[in-house]
């Protein structure tokens, strides 16, 4: 039997992954490139929150709007100064990808410089590498102690996915956004400002990554490499989700999150005794298996056809 705390841990981990995966999917939908710098938007959120927490003693949950704005603005600025000009000049997909890797390394290096400078500038007992933020509240339910992070991250995911869903389906801007993503040429002929829609997508993507970053130090020790280390899992979640729908990203985030946390827990038990350091291998396996079996992700699979093939549904597919 899997322990309840492992499952709760998996929920927190998955919530964080979902927040990151939605953002990555949003940027993927605009330029059709995987943004390798997405993890660094998370790191930027981490450092925004941590700096406010350390220097102004603000609770990490209170810094969420600031982290959202900071990472969102960073993503928007990068889109406007780098990705949009490159894309307008007709840079190839590989060119855009290598530009995003360049930004990734630049952001990570800047964060390292910031961590170095801040560690020297602050008193010796204040660290800017390998820090954690202590949890501020717990709630006891029956015999289970629920951490504030669990409650906050779950509430954030539900709230934000719902907001995004309403934005995309119930508002004029959201419908325009979907149109611009689906067919930019046609959308701009119909008077939709595609540039604005893409810019908003990047801002939202960065902002969601920033929110994930803001609460991340409550869960695990953070340093300038944290966001980068998460990137592989985020890719696994988005590839599994199909790279083209935010609901796919939510689904992928939960599957990858549970597979990693529960999977490595089971693999580390006696008969196998695997070191938990191999955790990223689970995400990598998910990427490879998805590419081999369903390269367009879970949301693009025709489940009725699969079920018919496996003789799960009698009579086969009607179409």
């Amino acid at each position, binding site marked *: 039997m899997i322990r309840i705390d492992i499952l709760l841990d998996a929920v927190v981990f998955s919530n964080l992954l979902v927040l990151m995966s939605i953002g990555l999917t949003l940027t993927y939908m605009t330029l059709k490139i995987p943004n390798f710098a997405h993890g660094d938007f998370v790191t930027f959120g981490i450092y925004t929150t941590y700096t406010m927490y350390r220097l102004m003693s603000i609770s990490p949950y209170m810094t969420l709007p600031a982290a959202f704005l900071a990472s969102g603005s960073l993503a928007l600025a990068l889109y406007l100064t780098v990705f949009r*000009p490159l894309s307008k000049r007709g840079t190839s997909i590989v060119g855009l990808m290598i530009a995003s890797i*360049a930004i990734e*390394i*630049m952001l990570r*290096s800047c964060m*390292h410089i910031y961590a170095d400078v801040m560690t020297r*500038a602050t008193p010796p007992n204040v660290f800017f590498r390998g820090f954690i933020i202590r949890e501020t509240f717990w709630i006891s339910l029956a015999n289970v102690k629920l951490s504030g992070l669990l409650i906050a991250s779950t509430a954030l995911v539900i709230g934000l996915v719902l907001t995004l869903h309403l934005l995309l389906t119930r508002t004029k801007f959201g419908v325009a956004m979907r149109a611009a993503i689906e067919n930019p040429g046609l959308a701009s002929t119909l008077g939709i400002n595609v540039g604005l829609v893409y810019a908003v997508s990047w801002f939202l993507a960065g902002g969601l990554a920033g929110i994930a970053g803001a609460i991340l130090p409550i869960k695990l020790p953070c340093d300038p490499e944290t966001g980068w280390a998460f990137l592989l899992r985020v890719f696994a979640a988005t590839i599994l989700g199909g790279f083209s729908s935010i609901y796919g990203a939510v689904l992928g985030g939960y599957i990858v999150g549970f597979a990693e946390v529960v999977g490595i827990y089971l693999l580390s038990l006696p008969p196998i005794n695997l070191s938990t350091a*191999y955790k990223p291998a689970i995400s990598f396996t998910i990427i490879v298996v998805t*590419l081999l079996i369903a390269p367009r992700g879970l949301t693009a699979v025709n489940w009725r056809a699969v079920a018919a093939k496996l003789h799960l549904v009698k009579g086969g597919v009607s179409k």
Partner: protein
Amino acid sequence: MIADPIRFLLDFTALFAVYLMLSVSLNLEYGYTGLPNFGKVLFFAGGAFVAGSVTARLVAPWAGINLAEINYSIENVKVAIAVSKYFAQNPGVAIGVFVFIILLSIVVGALLGYVASYPAIRLREDYLGITLLAAGELLRIIARNYEPLICGTLGVTIPNPFAWMGIRAQELAQIALMLSAAILVWVFVEKLARSPFGRMIRAVRDSEIAAAAMGKDVVKARMTSLVIGSAIAGLAGALYAFYTGAVHADDYVPIRTFLVWVMVIVGGAGNNAGAALGALAYVTMDRLIAQYKHYLAVPFDVNYLSYVFLGILLILILMYRPEGILPEKPSRTIDFEKVVKRIEGVKEEGMLSKLLKKFRRS
């Protein structure tokens, strides 16, 4: 002022040789074939790990060490020293083992290229890029934690296969060997690019559909290119490992891949001279930073600043000179006059010379 000019020159040449091999191999994959190999470090590490994990273990029994009796992870330095001493007395064995390891690393690099590309090479370039990058990180994580490979976080020391020479002579020989390997690789890729295979991979790069319509096997062309490129990276990795004398998993981070990309894109993708120029420029910068970083009074590591600089440089090049400093040249064709002379040289009155006469009259 350079503190130790000879040391500087030796290190410079060795690093240049390694990066030249890497940039030329990436140029083959990306410049000529259009493959986004974001996992260059994977194949580089593959070669280095072969040198690190096999060399000492292979020779240890001959040097009188029973590997079953000791904890190799902890005592690998001792083993390496003993094997180096054995090499010093048996030059023939040393040369044989060195050649064997180099060949093995080439094979392992090629195999890794084949395996890593398998799930994604049929798919779009973004998936291939992600898979290769992720595979590189995974290999590093495994190497860090799986002690039998390269002794985990401790790293492994490699015995010196040149130990039978004098101190300066062995270093000179090693660097001469590395440089000649790099030049050979450069010439090989240059010849390959001008061969029918080279024209075919460029056709695949420029239009996959058109190449397929002309009967070219696109998947096979890309795979071959990646396998050759990875074999070269494996060779570079093994030579680098022998030069540094040790292998640590954390030396093989994706930033190395990025550096090679900067070299190829700034130098000029699709032009081997550009790849060489890129490697030369980067190694010059890297060595100068290593020389002077201690004089700079900044509260952080200057290398981070150099990454920021390289990132900005790469993006500026992509924006304002996407073809790089030395752009790709159209493929060389045979001189027309030479063709005419060749045909005229044919004595008998064949169809060809009749045609030529007609052509001359008109």
